[in-house]
C-alpha cells in the first residue's frame, strides 16, 4: 500500500498541455463551506475520467463549475488551450461541454426526435420539417445502435430513465460535444441498460470525446474508467490510473481511514418469530412465505423488479394483498393500511426517503415523533416536553448532525435525513423494522454508522427485515438471506458463509436457465443495481 497520496502531486504524466479540458487551481466557496479548494485536473480526449468521493466531497460543485452553473472564485478552465469563461450553462454547451445530470430535462408532450433536436429544429416557413428531422435523428440513432432502444416517435413523458439519458446524450452528440460529463448515470438503470450505456460511453471515448464519469459505485468505475480522481472535502486527494487501484484502496482514499470493521454481526438470533408471512399473493407476488425472528437481521436480495420493496409494502398495508396471512408475535393480524401495521409493532423505513419517508418542510422534531404521536398525546394534546426528550434522545443516539430539533429536515444532508427516518422508528419501539435500502445514496461514513445501528437493534431483540441491492452489505450484515426473483422467493441462504455468486445465481435463476451463464465481468453491484 502506498502512503496517503494527499501530499503527492498526481503521479500520472501530463500529456501535451493543449488538448482537452484543463482545470487549474479552481476554488469555490459558499457561505460556511469551502466546496472546492485548489483543484487541478485535466480531462483528455479519448479517455474516461471518473470522479469519486463521498457526499459533500465536491463532485457536484466541480461538475457545476464545468457546466457554467457556478463561476469559480479563483482558478481557470481551458479547452484545447483556449481559456473558458462561462456565464451560464448555455455558454458551456456552445463551447462543446455537456454535463448530463441524473434527471435530464425532457419535454413531456413532444416525441423523442423533437426532444433530441430541441432548440435547433429544422424548419420550413415556420413549420417543423418532420422528414428532415426524422432523417437526421435516425442517422444518429442508427450510428450508435439505439434505434431499437429509443423509438423516435415515443412521447417525452413515456420515456424510462434510461431513455431520458439517451435523449440527453444524443442531444450532446448532435452538438458535437467535446467534453461529456455524466452525473450518477446508472442510479436508476437496469443491468442491461447499464451495459448498453457503458458501450455507448466507450464508443464516444474512442471517437475522441473526453468523458467525465461521476458515480458512487466503485466497482462500476473500476470497470469503466481509465483514470480515477478522488475528492475529499473539496480537495483533490489523488488521480490514478484505474488499473492501479483496488476497491479497498479507493474506499480508504475517499474516507481517509480504513473501514474493514464496518460489519460486526455479533449477536444471537432467538427462536421467537416476530414476523411471519404465509402464502402472500398480490399483484406483484406469487405465494411468498418468510419469517423474521427477534434479534435477527434477515436480508432480502434480488434484482430490480424482483418485488422486494413491494413485498415490504404489502406486508405493511401500503399495497393491496390478494391472499395470504401475516402474523406478528405468532398472532394473526389484520393489516389494511400502514397505521394498522404500526399499531401491530411494524416499522417501515422506505427506500425513497424524500418522497416517502420525510415531511421535508417540517422540522427534525416533527419528523422524528411522527410515528409516536398518539403515544405522546394525552387527550390528543401532545406532551411537548416528553416529545422533545424522546426525539432528542434518538437524534443524539444516531448522531444526527443538525443545528437544532427545529431545523427543517429538507435542509439536512442525505445521510442525516436517513437517520431522522430511523430515529422515528426507533422512538416507536417496533417489534419488526423493515429497512428498505437504508444506505442508498449516503456516504461511506454514515453507512458504517447505520450498519452499527442495525447491529445494535438486532442485539436488543428487534427483528430486522433488511432490503438492499448492495451485495457486500447484505452478506456482511444478514443472519439469513432470502433471494427474490420475479415475485417469488427463489432461495434462502444462511448469512455467514454465503457468497456473492450464490446470491446472484438465485437472483438470476430465471435468466440462467433461459440464457447464457453470468458473464465473468458482471460484478455483483451492477447485477443487483437499482
Amino acid at each position, binding site marked *: 500500500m502506498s502512503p496517503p497520496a494527499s501530499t503527492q502531486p498526481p503521479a500520472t504524466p501530463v500529456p501535451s498541455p493543449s488538448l482537452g479540458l484543463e482545470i487549474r487551481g479552481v476554488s469555490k466557496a459558499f457561505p460556511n463551506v469551502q466546496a472546492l479548494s485548489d483543484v487541478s485536473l485535466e480531462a483528455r480526449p479519448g479517455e474516461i475520467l471518473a470522479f469519486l468521493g463521498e457526499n459533500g466531497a465536491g463532485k*457536484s460543485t466541480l461538475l457545476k463549475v464545468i457546466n457554467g452553473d457556478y463561476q469559480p472564485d479563483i482558478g481557470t478552465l481551458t479547452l484545447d488551450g483556449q481559456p473558458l469563461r462561462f456565464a451560464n450553462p448555455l455558454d458551456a454547451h456552445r463551447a462543446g461541454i455537456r454535463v448530463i445530470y441524473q434527471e435530464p430535462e425532457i419535454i413531456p408532450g413532444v416525441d423523442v426526435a423533437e426532444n433530441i433536436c430541441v432548440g435547433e429544429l429544422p424548419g420550413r416557413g415556420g413549420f417543423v420539417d418532420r422528414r428532415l428531422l426524422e432523417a437526421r435523428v435516425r442517422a444518429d440513432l442508427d450510428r450508435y445502435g439505439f434505434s431499437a432502444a429509443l423509438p423516435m416517435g415515443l412521447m417525452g413523458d413515456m420515456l424510462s430513465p434510461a431513455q431520458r439519458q439517451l435523449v440527453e446524450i444524443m442531444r450532446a452528440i448532435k452538438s458535437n460535444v467535446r467534453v461529456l460529463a455524466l452525473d450518477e448515470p446508472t442510479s436508476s438503470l437496469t443491468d442491461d441498460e447499464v451495459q448498453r450505456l457503458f458501450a455507448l460511453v466507450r464508443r464516444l471515448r474512442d471517437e475522441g470525446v473526453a468523458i467525465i464519469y461521476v458515480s458512487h459505485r466503485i466497482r462500476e468505475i473500476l470497470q469503466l474508467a481509465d483514470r480515477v480522481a478522488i475528492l475529499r472535502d473539496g480537495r483533490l486527494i489523488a488521480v490514478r490510473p484505474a488499473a492501479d487501484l483496488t476497491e479497498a484502496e479507493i474506499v480508504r482514499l475517499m474516507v481517509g481511514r480504513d473501514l474493514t470493521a464496518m460489519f460486526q454481526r455479533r449477536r444471537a438470533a432467538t427462536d421467537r418469530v416476530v414476523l411471519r408471512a404465509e402464502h402472500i399473493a398480490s399483484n406483484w407476488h406469487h405465494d411468498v412465505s418468510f419469517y423474521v425472528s427477534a434479534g435477527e437481521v434477515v436480508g432480502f436480495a434480488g434484482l430490480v423488479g424482483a418485488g422486494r420493496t413491494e413485498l415490504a409494502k404489502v406486508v405493511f398495508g401500503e399495497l393491496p394483498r390478494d391472499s395470504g396471512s401475516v402474523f406478528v408475535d405468532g398472532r394473526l393480524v389484520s393489516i389494511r*393500511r400502514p397505521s394498522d401495521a404500526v399499531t401491530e409493532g411494524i416499522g417501515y423505513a422506505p427506500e425513497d426517503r424524500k*418522497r416517502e419517508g*420525510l*415531511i421535508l*418542510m*417540517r422540522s427534525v422534531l416533527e419528523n422524528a415523533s411522527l410515528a409516536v404521536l398518539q403515544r405522546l398525546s394525552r387527550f390528543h*394534546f401532545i406532551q411537548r416536553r416528553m416529545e422533545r426528550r424522546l426525539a432528542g434522545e434518538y437524534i443524539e443516539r444516531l448522531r444526527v448532525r443538525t443545528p437544532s430539533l427545529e431545523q427543517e429536515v429538507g*435542509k439536512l444532508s442525505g445521510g442525516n435525513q436517513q437517520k431522522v427516518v430511523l430515529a422515528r422508528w426507533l422512538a416507536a419501539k417496533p417489534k419488526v423494522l423493515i429497512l428498505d435500502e437504508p444506505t442508498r445514496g449516503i456516504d461511506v461514513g454514515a453507512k458504517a454508522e447505520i450498519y452499527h445501528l442495525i447491529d445494535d437493534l438486532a442485539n436488543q431483540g428487534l427483528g430486522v427485515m433488511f432490503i438492499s441491492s448492495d451485495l457486500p452489505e447484505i452478506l456482511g450484515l444478514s443472519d439469513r438471506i432470502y433471494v427474490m426473483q420475479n415475485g417469488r422467493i427463489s432461495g434462502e441462504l444462511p448469512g455467514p458463509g454465503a457468497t456473492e455468486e450464490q446470491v446472484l445465481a438465485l437472483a438470476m435463476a430465471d435468466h440462467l436457465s433461459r440464457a447464457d451463464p453470468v458473464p465473468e465481468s458482471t460484478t455483483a453491484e451492477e447485477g443487483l443495481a437499482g
Partner: protein
Amino acid sequence: MSEAPAGEVDGPATPPISPFRTALARAASVVRPVVRFIGAENLSLVIVLAIEIAIIVSQTKFFLGQQNLLNSLGQNIAVLGVLAVGESLVIIAGALDISVGSIAGIAGVAAALVVTGTGSMQLGLVAGIMAGICAGLVNGSIVAFLRVNPIIATLGTFAAFRGVAFLIAPNGYPVGVGTQPDFTWLGSGRILGGGGFVGIPIILIILIFVAVVGHVLLRYTDFGRSIYALGGNATAARLAGINLTRVRLGMYVFCGITAGLSGVLLAARTTSGSPLNGQGMELQAITAVFLGGAATTGGKGTVVGTVLAVLILGVLSNGMNLLGVQQYWQDVATGMLLVTGVAIAQFRALRSERARTRIASRG
C-alpha cells in the same frame, strides 16, 4: 444586541450594565414571547398591517374611533374570520374547501328556521352548527372514501349545498329573524359597554374563541400535527402510520363547523336566514388563508397568519370605505394585495431554496 454601547469599547471585561442595555433587555423579554406566538414567518404580515394602519390613520381621524374599530371593522371581519380559520386547516392539509360559503348559506337558513320555530337562540345555534357538521361529513367522505380530488369534490358540493339552502328555505325565500332579539344579539350584541365605552361585540369574542381553538388544535394536538404532515407529504405521513382517512374527515368536519357557525353569525347580523347568504365568501376565506402564508401545496401555514390576513383585508376595506373609495377599487386593491403578498412570499422561499441547494450540492 450583545454589542456594547460605543463609549465602552475600552472598558473592563465586564462592562457596567448601562441603562440602555437593561431597557433593551427588558424590551427583548417582552417582545420575544410575542414574536414566538406570532411566529417569525408572520412578522411581515404584522408589518404590512402596521403600514396599512399608519397610512389610513394619517388620512382620516375616524379610523381610530372605537365606534369604527369595534363596530364597523370588528363586526365585519368576524364572519369572514371564523370561516377562514376552518379553511386554514384544510388548506394546510394540502386540500381545499370551496363549499364553505354554501355551507354558511344552509346553516343560516337552518338556524333561522329553528329560531323562528322554537324561539330559542341556543337551538338555532346548534342547528346551524349541526348543518355544518353534516356538510363537513359529506365533503370529508367524498374526499377520504371516494378519493375525489378536494377541488372537484367541494366544487360539486359548492353547487349542491347552495341548492339545499334554497330547498330548505320555505319557497326559497329568506327566513327573517328580526323579531328574535336573542338571536340577532349574536350578530350585533355587545358586552362590557358603558361609561363611554361602546362594548365588545359578541361576534368578535366568538371569532377570538374560534381562532384560539383553531390555533390550539393545529399547534398542540396530534390532529394538528397530522394535518401538517398530510399537507407536507401525504405518502410519508401514511407510511409513518397516520390514519389519513380520519384526518381528512376530521378537518372537513372542523371546517364545516366553522362554516356553519359563520352562517349563523351572518344570519344574526343581517337579521335574515337567506339561502343567498355567504355567496362569494369562500373565495374571500381562501384569499385570507393564502395571504396569511399558507402554502398552496400544503404543509405550511398558521391560524395566526390567517387572522392577521383577515385583519389586513378588513382594515383595507374599512379604511377605503372611510376614505370614500369606490367599491370597485377596493376589489382591485384586495386582488393586488393577495398577488403581491404571495409573490413576495414566493421570492423569499426561492431565495432560501437557493441557499439550501447550494449547501446540498456540494459533492
